[in-house]
């Protein structure tokens, strides 16, 4: 499957699980998007662990302009105060609109689990057709223990009361997927 077809499928499948997708030019644009979403929702902060160098500077600048707090480490101390979690995904699976994320660092997990909105950045070149295509990558990752990997496909959901689909029971209430076109990660 060509990368463009994979991207089209991923976007189509994302819609079915209420994932909001957008294409962005680069990491800086993604930061601006995250700040904008947070502001629109009345949020006050962004948690973004594991960033460094230019990426971190872009985000710092964007948060500062937007008047948002930025948490980058020891996120356990900030549980309850995280409006948006901003993370980079390792792969995207087109068939199921799934983000695959190495979540071994605790901060990474807290940022993606205990935020109100999760904004994930995915390099366009990292989209594969189906989960089976990642068999080898996943196996190698699991061999490098300890490892905590997450497949995320949409926002947290339940249908436990009269089978009525309800979003945001435990995890984020929204998942935004920003695809950085033409990057190789």
């Amino acid at each position, binding site marked *: 499957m060509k990368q463009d077809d994979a991207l089209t499928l991923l976007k189509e499948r994302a819609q079915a699980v209420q994932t909001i997708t957008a294409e962005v030019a680069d990491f800086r644009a993604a930061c601006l998007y995250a700040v904008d979403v947070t502001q629109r929702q009345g949020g006050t902060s962004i948690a973004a662990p594991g960033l460094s160098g230019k990426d971190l500077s872009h985000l710092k600048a964007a948060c500062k302009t937007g008047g948002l707090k930025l948490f980058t480490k020891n996120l356990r101390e900030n549980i309850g105060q995280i409006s948006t979690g901003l993370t980079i995904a390792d792969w995207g699976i087109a068939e*199921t609109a799934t983000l695959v994320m190495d979540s071994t660092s605790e901060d990474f997990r807290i940022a993606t689990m205990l935020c109100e909105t999760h904004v994930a950045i995915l390099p366009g070149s990292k989209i594969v057709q189906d989960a089976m295509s990642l068999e080898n990558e996943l196996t190698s990752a699991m061999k490098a*223990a*300890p490892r905590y990997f997450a497949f995320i496909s949409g926002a947290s959901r*339940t249908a436990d*009361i009269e089978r009525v689909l309800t979003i945001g029971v435990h995890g984020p209430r929204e998942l935004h997927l920003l695809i950085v076109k033409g990057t190789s990660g």
Partner: protein
Amino acid sequence: MIKTPHDVKTYRRDLKNALRNNFLGATLDNFATAYRTSRATAFSGIDFDALAHEIAAGKDQSIAHLPELLEKFSTQAEKAGVKVHFARTAFEANSIIASIAKASGVKQIVKGKSMTAEETFLNAHLEKEGFEVTETDLGEWIIQLRNEGPSHMVMPAIHLTRQEVAELFTKVTGKPQDPDDINGMVKVARKELRRKFLDAEMGISGANFAIAETGTIGLVTNEGNGRLVTTLPRVHVALVGVDKLLPDMKSALRILKALPRNATGQLISTYVTWITGATECKSSPDSKKEMHIVFLDNGRLALAADPAFSEALRCIRCGACANVCPIYKLVGGHNYGHVYIGAIGLILTYFYHGRRNARAIVKNCLNCQACKSVCPTGIDLPHLIKEVHRTVLNVEGKKPVKNLLLKKALGNRRMFHFLLRRASLAQKPFSEGQYLRHLPFMFSGEQEFRRLPAIAKVPLRDMWESINRRVENPRYRVALFGGCLSDFVYPEQGEALLQLCGDHEVQLEYPMEQTCCGLPAQMMGERETAKDVAVQNLRAIDPADYDYILTLCASCGSHLKENYQKLLSQEPALAVKVSQLRDKLIDFSSFIVKVLKVDPEEFRRLGGKVAYHSPCHLCRGLGVTKEPRELLSTAGFEYVPAKDEDVCCGFGGSYSIDFPEISAELLKRKLDNVEDTGAETLVTDCPGCVLQLRGGMEKRGGKVKVKHIAEVVAEQKKQPRRKG
């Protein structure tokens, strides 16, 4: 607390109560309808049967090597800092987990959804030991607060109304909750449970996969609570049945392709989590999670070694066998399983929770094959249910009188057919046209939801020679396997067949030594009797003598095709004949459409509006769905689809005698759906279904005629062309 009846009388009382619960009846019906569509959409573009076959083969391999997989898993996981435990029994598992909690100074525990923990009654054990345990899956939390067991393996609280949940949450929060604000109630759970996650020192999860190659566990969840349970507390214990062991990631991904699609019609669940080893955890003194994996045997290893029952360990807990079960749909999971729910529940209860809990529920199967047709691991659920039923009867040594009578009657064909002919005379004072006017006392009362047919004056076999024309140079030689109902109750169905074959140069034969197919014996758990009649029939009909073995009864056909192989697998002399029989067996509609290739020209037009009931053993047993519908249109009928055409009519042979309340309700729904179509005639391919549907329609005074497809098609046939 879960209380499963230990006797049929109490069980039937519970079933009757459940049938009076209108909410349950409506909600499960809606669910079944929605599930059917979403599942089909989720599997579009995927060859389900091929996938199920692959998963089954993979699981069978794992099941045969559980000790080796366990050893490999343990080595890998321990290398990654996990302590692996092995519990022989449920009690041992619970005790191990309690001692881990004690040793780590734990007071509060949060739990993710785990059927294995339900199996061991872990919460009750931990609470008795003084720990505070909170379920964090919304459905599980609700039933925990209500002190109930799950009523579905995937949707544990599906039996509850929004009002019941609102009432419960009002108590929990001390603030009134609006039952129509489901979003608001979900927020209550989010808020209440968030605190629990943060306070707990230990998280307990189950696992959907245990991958030996890397010592990884995989969790499939939607709410995200599983992620929090495995992340926030400083201790994580996973309780895992040894049947979840798989060799590698590939095996897990293969199952993941089927599991959410089959469970809820989702392409994938929202979260799938893969954990290898003790990861970072900053609430722990050394910033490292204390991680334990407790593998549970509880009879699984013994089950794995059993040639017949090991198949049950393939189960991946998708719950689909409940979703499609017509009985589950009426009475809900609290009346259709013990801890494990649905068809697989009827089987596993016997192995994990004992004979007393399995004794009554295991009888409650129509053998409609709906579960088997959706099982993503190809478990022959109806067959295993009958095998458990048979085992329970044998172990308890208390066989019902009807079993003994049947065994006696079927043991000798002459005697059996003599009795049937005698019954035709004996019923005279009780019969009224084609029906019995009064039912014999043993059937009275609860059996009166349908009228039962009288036995024919002359059975098909006795009129056969006089009505069967000899064909000089036949294109096909075909043996008719009549089956008891076509032979002794509805001989007109056989007559119709002969009429249809009249000018198609087919020589039909009725091998006179044939007897009951044996399905009734199989249904009652009488395997030996079923085997005896199978041998009798194979002696009566040598497949090598015919081009086709044709049957008018889908149930007989499906039993001959599927079960004879299982019954006679140990009989080398007959095994080949069984295969030949399978190859040559054909149902009525397929024969007329695919072999005779009838032409619309042979039939009159304007046959009227007909609805169709798809017999369980035709559409699922024999996999025939297109031909009957095609035949109806060829024969000049206007076919109008009805809701739930392929859902069981509730007959199930002796099932309708054992559980008349369920049979009556299924029949009612079926006839309601048919009447809604405005059809003049209801057509089906199985004399058993004819018996149930016609008797029910007659009883309710309905206007729709009920007929076997052979009859209606023969009625439409123009006069045969005479040669010369």
